[in-house]
């Protein structure tokens, strides 16, 4: 009766996914493609967070880009400071500060940039800054029982505000160009092929760790409470739980996941810009989770991989059709397969495999928590 972390089936799924990202991709792809996949996988962090927060908890955030961006910016600030050593920036009027500050007549490093000279501080800030931000938004909203659509719209407004702020304060943030031209991490050149391979593996390992944490939450009583809150918030309250705290926790956890993704994005892509903070990327990240299956953590990873891969290859061949395809995907995923690829897999592939193996499908018991939400949306 006791709950294990993964069922046998899920262990196999984890093994396949790990093999895919840790062995198959690196073995079969050139460094360029591998780096691309690494970039896609950073989006998977956000999607995994959304599966917990939205799929399970019914909290749809249209502002995950905020956290992805904040995590990424924290990392970018550290790297930029390292790249802006007085020797490298000798031609500036104020050497030793980032180039964009110099262009904007900033003559001194702003005080809030200073701590980012420390790598340990940066590592902490990558997670803590977005989480504090999420906590503030969450505390204000969930304590006052703002949910569903209102929450989605307000997070969206936050994404818009933050974008305008970053773009407008370009002397301190790099503006619309973002923080670019990042070179080394503690003296280690992150632009070389070797570094990219190592970063890819770090990223993949972190993703698997995040999946494990996500699964731990999912199978705990917390995970069942999330579903309970999504479906009958009042009942949870009258069973003696402080719903707001649970929502805040899961929102902060999703923010932390996104932030890790953002930081890894900065490391692998070499820059960070406000175009990841805004509304459009935030909604795109929701679609990754939706395509993969909003209730499946593994699905989120596949969703991020497949949508981005399709985006890249589609836009290489038919750039003009890409938006049609993307829009169609949104509609299809909502209208015809709300449980995404994971749902399709469960309803079509699994029975087939089971028939082939002549074994009964594992009893419904393990899947009930995840399968077939009677009511997909929150109040």
């Amino acid at each position, binding site marked *: 009766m006791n709950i294990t972390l993964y069922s046998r089936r899920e262990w196999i799924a984890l093994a396949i996914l790990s093999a895919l990202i840790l062995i198959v991709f690196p073995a079969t792809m050139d460094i360029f493609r591998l780096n691309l996949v690494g970039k896609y996988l950073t989006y998977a962090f956000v999607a995994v967070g959304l599966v917990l927060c939205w799929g399970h908890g019914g909290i749809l955030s249209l502002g995950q880009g905020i956290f992805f961006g904040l995590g990424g910016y924290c990392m970018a600030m550290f790297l930029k400071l390292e790249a802006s050593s007085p020797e490298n920036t000798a031609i500036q009027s104020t050497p030793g500060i980032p180039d964009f500050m110099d262009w904007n007549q900033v003559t001194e490093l702003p005080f809030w940039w200073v701590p980012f000279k420390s790598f340990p501080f940066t590592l902490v800030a990558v997670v803590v800054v977005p989480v504090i931000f999420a906590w503030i938004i969450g505390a204000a909203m969930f304590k006052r029982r703002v949910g569903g659509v209102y929450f989605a719209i307000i997070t969206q407004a936050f994404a818009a505000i933050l974008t305008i702020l970053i773009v407008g304060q370009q002397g301190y943030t790099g503006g619309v160009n973002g923080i670019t031209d990042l070179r080394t991490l503690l003296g280690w050149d992150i632009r070389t092929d070797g570094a990219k391979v190592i970063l890819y593996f770090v990223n993949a390992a972190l993703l698997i760790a995040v999946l494990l944490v996500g699964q731990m939450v999912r199978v705990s009583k917390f995970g069942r409470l999330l579903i309970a809150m999504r479906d009958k918030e009042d009942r949870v309250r009258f069973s003696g739980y402080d719903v707001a705290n649970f929502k805040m926790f899961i929102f902060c956890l999703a923010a932390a996941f996104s932030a890790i993704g953002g930081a890894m994005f900065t490391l692998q892509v070499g820059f960070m810009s406000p175009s990841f903070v805004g509304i459009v990327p935030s909604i795109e990240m929701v679609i990754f989770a939706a395509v993969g299956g909003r209730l499946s953590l593994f699905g989120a990873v596949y969703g991020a991989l497949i949508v981005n891969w399709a985006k890249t290859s589609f836009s290489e061949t038919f750039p003009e059709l890409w938006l049609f395809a993307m829009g169609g995907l*949104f509609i299809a995923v909502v209208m015809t397969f709300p449980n995404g690829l994971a749902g399709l897999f469960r309803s079509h592939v699994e029975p087939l495999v089971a028939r082939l193996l002549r074994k009964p499908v594992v009893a419904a018991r393990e899947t009930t928590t995840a399968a077939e939400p009677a009511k997909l949306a929150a109040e």
Partner: protein
Amino acid sequence: MIGDYTLVEFSSILAMQGFAGLILFSVFVLMALGLAVIFGQMGVINMAHGEFMILGAYVTWLCSQFVTAYVPALFPIYFFIAMALAFVASGALGILVEWALIRHLYKRPLDTLLATWGLSLILQQLYRSVFGAREVGVSLPDWMMGSFPLTDIIEVPINGLFVMALTILISLAVFLLMFRSRWGKQVRAVVQNRPMAGAVGINTKKVDRLTFGLGCGVAGVAGSAFTMIGSTGPTAGQLYIVDTFLVVVFGGAASLIGTIASAFTISQAQSTMEFFMSGSMAKVLTLLTVVGILMLRPEGLFTLKMRR
């Protein structure tokens, strides 16, 4: 600030700023009214609202092209025809979309959000494929472009007056329709209790479809009117979406009066702040204030306390 200016100048500026605020207010009301009907009355989140507006704008552009080419005599008044056509086109598209998408999703409001976002992407690309990626310039009759000089400094833009008049007209029409007509009663009945409304013989499907169509049609008229003050391009609709939703939510979603009050508050705040600081900061502060107030008062400005 007064130090630099004479009293006359300063009071003129106050008047002008008030007028600028009123124009912004009208713009917000026009943007938000269609959404308030759809979101407030039906609970549907239409992320493609901006694209319905742009459809109206493109219809206006097509009209201006057609009229200049074939019946130049009509040019001075073509705008009225264009607005009517914009209403019809956007409304018809709205009805189609309701039939194809929305009606399957009434129980899943967050999913309407995603589906309509997908729709907005498709519409954007469609506009781009049909009308080209560049913005189109809608030419306006001369009488709509100038301004009345009231004093040396104060000049009243005619298109601003036009937008204001249009706003009043459309708001009135929507109010009469929603609160004084039999159809409006049906809409409200369906909103409050769908099964019961169905049981007493209201064709709920038809009501839904027409309500959605009405909301989209109003968006189309707004888009048509905005060709006077803004740009018409495939992605221009995106510019409006955050503001529009905030106006509606801030007003208290279910209340049309609330929408108008909130449009007034936000527009006055924004235009006043714009006068004292840079546009970017004014925008950030306005949005932050609105979001802050919404956090303290999530139900918005105007809502009935409901017995649950």
